[in-house]
């Protein structure tokens, strides 16, 4: 997929949405706090709103060009949209909802068979029900299937997990990942949840106050935020790919490069994960070992020390790059210096595994 958004300008209540970005990966997350203009951006791409100025191109098709007063109406864009409130048609059954976009003459994308979509999203048992009788997670799947069945060439998802509680979220993420892998459909997913972005996206666009602050591969943006503002929103210090080697009594053994960590097992079966550790959850002590309840004891070399106000950000090499945030007095007391050896302790629940 190649989605080009050029010279976008749309005045909103408190700021103007101004975007110049090219999205090339299969799944892009538009990441930012609430009220950053994310939904308005999706509306522009779907053609539900007109911008003051905009040039929008999806692959080789121009969808809108205000300079030439050119505008492709929504129904001809072939863009599937799952809005935050899902917008299932309450007067129609699940089956009628699913088939609503089925007969449209503008099938621009690949055609997915009804049976296949229903099977992948496990909708079969719901099909003759009314949509008002569905639970939150079921509604989510039906809305997703309805959008897929209109054979779109791009799928827009607005906060697909925001309205669900934590256990449900973890159930829906695998469905979204399946849709991504099974149907090979490009997706643009708006989110303010970094784990959601990690689990689904290849590429990320950080949108704050109507402005794009950074774009790039997910890991790059999360590990190397371009500015303090971006860092504030992405907010995880250590992020590294790893593999679950085994799961035993709810504890997962994860290998990260040459190092092995113990973490709480995620509910999904995925073997490949991202290991996320917040800097304040990493405890440093002298290399001399003392027995404690902490499962993860890593001997590490100090690569760099950087003072950030009252804190020191310690960059470690523990077989993988690991960041710790400690206070300045602690740094002085431990006599940390670049090139020195320390032991890093991380409690098991502080390691968050996100399927990738």
């Amino acid at each position: 997929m190649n989605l080009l958004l050029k010279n976008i300008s749309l005045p909103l209540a408190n700021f103007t949405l101004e975007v110049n970005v090219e999205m090339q990966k299969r799944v892009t997350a538009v990441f930012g706090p609430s009220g950053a203009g994310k939904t308005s951006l999706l509306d522009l791409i779907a053609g539900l709103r007109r911008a003051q100025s905009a040039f929008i191109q999806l692959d080789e098709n121009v969808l809108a060009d205000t300079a030439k007063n050119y505008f492709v109406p929504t129904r001809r864009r072939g863009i599937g949209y799952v809005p935050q409130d899902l917008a299932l048609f309450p007067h129609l059954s699940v089956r009628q909802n699913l088939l609503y976009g089925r007969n449209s003459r503008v099938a621009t994308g690949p055609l997915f068979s009804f049976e296949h979509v229903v099977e992948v999203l496990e909708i079969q048992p719901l099909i003759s029900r009314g949509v008002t009788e569905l639970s939150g997670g079921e509604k989510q799947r039906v809305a997703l299937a309805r959008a897929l069945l209109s054979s779109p060439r791009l799928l827009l998802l607005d906060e697909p997990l925001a309205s669900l509680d934590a256990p449900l979220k973890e159930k829906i993420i695998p469905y979204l990942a399946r849709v991504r892998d099974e149907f090979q459909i490009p997706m643009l997913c708006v989110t303010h949840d970094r784990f959601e972005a990690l689990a689904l996206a290849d590429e990320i666009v950080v949108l704050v106050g109507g402005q794009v602050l950074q774009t790039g591969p997910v890991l790059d943006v999360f590990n190397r935020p371009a500015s303090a503002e971006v860092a504030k929103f992405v907010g995880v210090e250590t992020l590294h790919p790893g593999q679950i080697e085994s799961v035993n009594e709810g504890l997962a053994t994860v290998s990260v490069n040459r190092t092995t960590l113990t973490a709480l097992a995620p509910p999904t079966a995925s073997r490949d994960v991202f290991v996320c550790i917040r800097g304040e959850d990493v405890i440093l002590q002298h290399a001399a070992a003392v027995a404690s309840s902490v499962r993860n004891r890593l001997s590490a070399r100090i690569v760099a020390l950087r003072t950030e106000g009252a804190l020191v950000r310690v960059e470690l090499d523990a077989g993988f790059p690991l960041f710790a945030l400690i206070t300045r007095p602690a740094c002085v007391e431990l006599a940390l210096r670049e090139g020195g050896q320390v032991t890093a302790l991380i409690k098991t629940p502080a390691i968050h595994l996100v399927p990738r």
Partner: protein
Amino acid sequence: MTSDEWQIVWFTAWVSALSTLVILPFGLALAWALARRDWPGKSIVETFVSLPLVMPPVATGLILLKLFGRRGGIGGFLHDKFNLDVIFTWRAVLLALSVMSLPLLVRAARVAFEEVNPRLEQIARTLGAGDWRVFFTITVPLAARGIVGGMLLAFARALGEFGATIMVAGSIPGKTQTISLAIFQNVQLGDDTHAYRLLGVSVVLAFAAVWCSELFLRRRKK
């Protein structure tokens, strides 16, 4: 009941029903345009549509009489081009009932359209539906309760219409006389038995209309 009385009841019922059907497409289009679009002169049209609600019906009737009489703009045109006379015919009854009941339909349908979540219509569009399909498969079904409620109100208003009708259609027995006109005339002539029988019929008709609408609303709620 005499055959004359049956004729009056039958005439009133079908011309009221016909007027409701005649204003339906126009009323829905207008209600939709008022609910969903912004256009210059919208507030003026809005006011104009509601005028028959607040003006004395006789005054509305007088305006129609002037417009549709042979010397009036529209009436003259219809007479010259199509040899069609409106005033003092059943067509005048239809005209009076339509104009008087239109505001009720438009107001009810407008509120009903406004209550339909525009997001549903937008998403229908992303699924490939054009304007007409969105209107008939999403907007109208979701606004159905309000629309049917408005139609029943309009029909009931038409059944009881008096002032505008008597101005443009007169009260010609067997031709333009509706239940209300007949009751008034019979009371004037001191023929109370006639008047009371027609009164009974209008109570039954009104009861049936309201009862139907209640039934319908309750069924839709389930």
